[in-house]
């Protein structure tokens, strides 16, 4: 399974992703500079976290116009997997691959923490290695992670089961107490209707090696590779 990781000026999780896909999972991984419009013959594109273009104007606003992102849109439109993590999620909403937007956290704080999340569906190639309703713990690190969409869009997300991860309590209940940043519907991650594009604010790549204190993110990458090999 070949992975591409897009590298923007200001990206800072690109190598963390490559460490998981290349070093832990042993999959060929190429780093693609944002000015490169050729992704090569890759199966999965990862848009990593960080502060692309300094987060100027809005998070992800400028990154969406880079040649590598235009190629990523083509990749997604061909039905191939695209994963956006944190700033990558913000970029995917700006470029229109995912609905809604990420705005400033409810409590004005940059949050750096580990939070429980409930896995809402396991019939996606992203979540094949999780069990239904499983509660996992992943790190979050963001100032603008509050998911916003208008009511009609939210209703559509619910109806099409596009909400993949929700902030929850450790026992799996989803309520305002378990909502770190004010996201509507406790939304931590969503997919497009077809399910091949996933965006999430938490960092699965930072929870894939036990030395970092948690491995709940590893099944996402392992499940993805397993699903793609089986396909």
């Amino acid at each position, binding site marked *: 399974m070949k992975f591409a990781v897009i590298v923007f000026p200001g990206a800072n999780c690109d190598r963390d992703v490559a460490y998981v896909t290349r070093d832990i999972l042993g999959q060929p991984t190429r780093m693609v500079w944002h000015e490169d419009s050729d992704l090569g013959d890759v199966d999965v594109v990862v848009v990593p976290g960080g502060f692309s273009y300094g987060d100027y104007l809005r998070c992800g606003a*400028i990154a969406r116009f880079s040649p590598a992102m235009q190629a990523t849109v083509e990749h997604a439109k061909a039905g191939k997997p695209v994963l956006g993590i944190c700033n990558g999620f913000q970029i995917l909403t700006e470029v229109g691959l995912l*609905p809604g937007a990420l*705005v400033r956290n409810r409590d*004005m704080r940059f949050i750096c923490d580990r939070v429980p999340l409930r896995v809402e569906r396991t019939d996606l190639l992203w979540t094949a290695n999780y069990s239904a309703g499983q509660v996992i713990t992943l790190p979050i690190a963001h100032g603008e992670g509050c998911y916003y*969409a*208008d009511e009609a869009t939210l209703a559509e997300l619910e109806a099409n089961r596009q909400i993949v991860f929700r902030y929850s309590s450790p026992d799996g209940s989803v309520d305002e107490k378990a909502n770190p940043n004010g996201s509507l519907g406790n939304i931590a991650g969503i997919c497009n209707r077809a399910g091949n594009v996933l965006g999430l604010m938490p960092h699965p790549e930072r929870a894939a090696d036990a030395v970092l204190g948690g491995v709940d993110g590893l099944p996402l990458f392992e499940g993805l590779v397993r699903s793609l090999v089986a396909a």
Partner: protein
Amino acid sequence: MPHYSARIYVTLRPSVLDPAGTAVQSGLAHMGYTNVGPIRIGKYIELTLEAENEAAASQQLDRMCDQLLANPVIENYRFELQTLATA
């Protein structure tokens, strides 16, 4: 071609929470201005451009705002155009 200057105002849509505005409101309250109501913080952008005429400039600005300067999911925008004196 004539030159224009544009003043662009980007504001949060009313349905989007503005925690920064709330924080500034509480700062003003600490200064003693407890008479200040809700605050909304937006962005102000200035630019100059060259275009065939005012209608063309306005059309281009609309596209710039829709695609980059504002995010229509969370923001509204408006702009004022002014013709600059040509040398």
